[in-house]
């Protein structure tokens, strides 16, 4: 595939690795905050090939991982209603709530359907006017424009049987929260390429300046990741800390202003709980008042559903890089990809699942 395969060239990957090996003189710790990047790093084994001492800490870049327990329980409460057709991206189906998950609910007869795009949910709502169609709007800023357009379209069409359950999270506040943590080990960041394609990278400039950490906007293919890591390491070796762009073919500094406008129209910034981490102020999106009618939480009266995250679960420390899965008492025994307890084991790019599949033991 054009613009994909070229960035997987093994020969060029080896050159980048060689350059990295001669450039890095210290055991730098970098973090990527994007599930897609984690996926490539783990699947290609790139994190195994880094110069001795260097490591990639997998950040909370997977919206599946960070959707709070409470929101999962709301989703489950809504999905079990007989009049509801609950639509969702595939990733979310096996994420455990307090008692069950969407896939198990489907086995019990709930109308839960996987969709590729929120547009598909709109189409279902148009085709099946007797069903209450709910879309689970999970994601970072990358997915917000799609969900915004969907709400605008639903409003235009006057769809009374469509609503969304919003679980959007924003990356820059998460990075700040990680950097503020007392046990933070991260010295540089790879910023998520597609998040930045939408939002640009201006929000990261004050972070790089204030905390003195290099931030490199990076793509998703093996060459992108290796080049992004190299750029970050070069900055660290020379004591610089700025925002650079590796993913030049897709990202501009100001981002996609049409997409940003749609987000600003349909959503407003809210505080948001991140599973295992806790509430991070102004780190999420909720529906703006003008579109409150499309809020599934309101429509189905689940605003008061509360769930307490278990205090002993260390998913939060995994997600900030402070701990590794093998530090967890339940890892590999009570908690496995077949019987996941927390989100980093559910998602195939979650750190715990990656460790488990690689055969790492306590």
């Amino acid at each position, binding site marked *: *595939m054009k613009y994909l395969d070229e960035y997987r060239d*093994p020969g060029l*990957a*080896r050159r980048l*690795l060689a350059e990295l090996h001669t450039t890095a003189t210290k055991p730098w710790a970098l973090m990527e905050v994007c*599930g897609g990047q984690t*996926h490539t790093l783990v*699947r*290609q*084994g*790139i994190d195994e*090939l880094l110069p001795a001492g260097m490591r990639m800490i997998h950040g909370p870049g*997977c*919206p*599946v991982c960070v959707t709070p327990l409470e929101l999962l329980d709301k989703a489950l409460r809504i999905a079990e209603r007989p009049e509801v057709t609950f*639509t969702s*991206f*595939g*990733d979310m*189906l*096996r994420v*455990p*709530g*307090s*008692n*069950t*998950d969407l*896939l*198990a609910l*489907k*086995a*019990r007869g709930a109308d839960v359907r*996987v*969709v*590729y795009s929120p547009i*598909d949910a709109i189409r279902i709502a148009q085709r099946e006017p007797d069903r209450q169609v709910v879309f689970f709007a999970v*994601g970072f800023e990358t*997915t917000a424009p799609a969900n915004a357009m969907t709400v605008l379209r639903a409003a235009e069409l006057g769809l009374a049987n469509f609503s969304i359950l919003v679980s959007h999270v924003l990356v820059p506040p998460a990075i700040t929260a990680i950097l503020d943590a007392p046990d933070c080990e991260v010295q540089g960041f790879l910023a998520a390429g597609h998040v930045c394609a939408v939002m640009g990278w201006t929000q990261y400039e004050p972070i790089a300046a204030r905390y003195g950490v290099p931030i490199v906007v990076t793509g998703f293919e*093996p060459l992108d990741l*290796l080049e992004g890591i190299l750029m970050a390491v070069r900055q660290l070796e020379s004591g610089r800390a700025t925002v650079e762009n590796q993913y030049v073919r897709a990202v501009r500094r100001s981002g996609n202003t049409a997409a940003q406008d749609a987000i600003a129209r349909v959503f407003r910034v809210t505080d948001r709980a991140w599973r295992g981490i806790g509430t991070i102020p102004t780190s999420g999106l909720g529906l703006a008042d003008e579109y409150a009618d499309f809020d599934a939480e309101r429509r189905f009266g689940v605003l008061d559903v509360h769930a307490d*995250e*278990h205090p*002993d*679960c*260390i*998913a939060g420390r995994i997600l900030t890089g402070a701990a590794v899965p093998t530090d*967890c*008492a339940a890892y590999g025994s*009570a*908690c496995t*990809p*077949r*019987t996941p*307890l*927390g989100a980093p084991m559910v*998602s195939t*790019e979650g750190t715990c699942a990656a460790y488990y*599949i*690689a*055969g790492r033991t306590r």
Partner: protein
Amino acid sequence: MTANPAELSCPAPRVETERVLLGHGSGGQLSAALVREVIVPALGAAAPAGPLEDAAVFDVDGVELVMSTDSFVVSPLFFPGGDIGRLAVHGTINDVAVMGGEPIALSLAFVIEEGFPLDDLRRVATSVGEAARAAGVSVVTGDSKVVGRGAADGLFVTTTGIGRRLPRARFSAARPVAGDVVLLSGPIGAHGVTVLSVREGLGFDGDVASDTQPLHRLVQAMVEAGGSAVHAVRDPTRGGIASALNEIAAAAGVGVVIDESSVPVPAPVSAACELLGLDPLHVANEGCLVAFIAPQAADAVLAAMRSVPEGFGATRIGRAVLDHPGRVTARTLVGAQRIVDMLIGEQLPRIC
């Protein structure tokens, strides 16, 4: 697997032990668990011990027969490259073939949902007839039942195949040893991606068609060339080649290393997998097979495969090794090793 609530240090959702999930049918870890932990123990002494294979081999008065059964529940029923009828014939023929059987006869059972269009039933039956005729196999007996609306997804088809064991074929998942060469008969991923392409919600148009085809002639060519040097053969249906290789690695107690860049994936299949976030190694196939061959016979068997139409794309993809017995690893594009795991449950398209 039971979990003691008092010992858990993470939130413990109720593990789904009471009901069957869709994932139990997907050919991966859950499917294997369903058979191993629920069905086989319940059968008790009626089920002979031994590794779980694609077909059974048994002796009737000195004649070795191979028998296999399979149910076909594919949705949608009609897709580019085939339909449930074709699938039902090829699937069972292939299960008999990969256990070293020359397929002779099939039984055919329909479970039909009330309201199912007669024209569609005719189409499927015609397809069955054509596929069986082309494969040189007879449909000798059958059954049909009708169930109430909603109780079946239109049509379910079950075929059982009987064959005669090829004298020189001694395949078993337990036979491969370290040093064996792993061969793949052709490109992967076409069937699974095709079926997904016509499914609601994930639809796309593409130059993809199911690869469903009978493989018994291919297997016969392999046996003629390699005889008992052909240790194991599998047709990787649900769960893809990842699951098939893992099953053999576990049964034989060998490690398997494959070179990811040598596994042929057609461009549109690759593109569809990118779009949906699927791993081609986990995608279902209906027209290819993997085989473990003793190294000295590998070249001859490969040449024999390439000499028949069903195996023109045959290629080496890896080896069985002493390291990491029971596990499959792949050499990635950038030269690292990664674990290739079995599919867990239903393959869900991801967006992350």
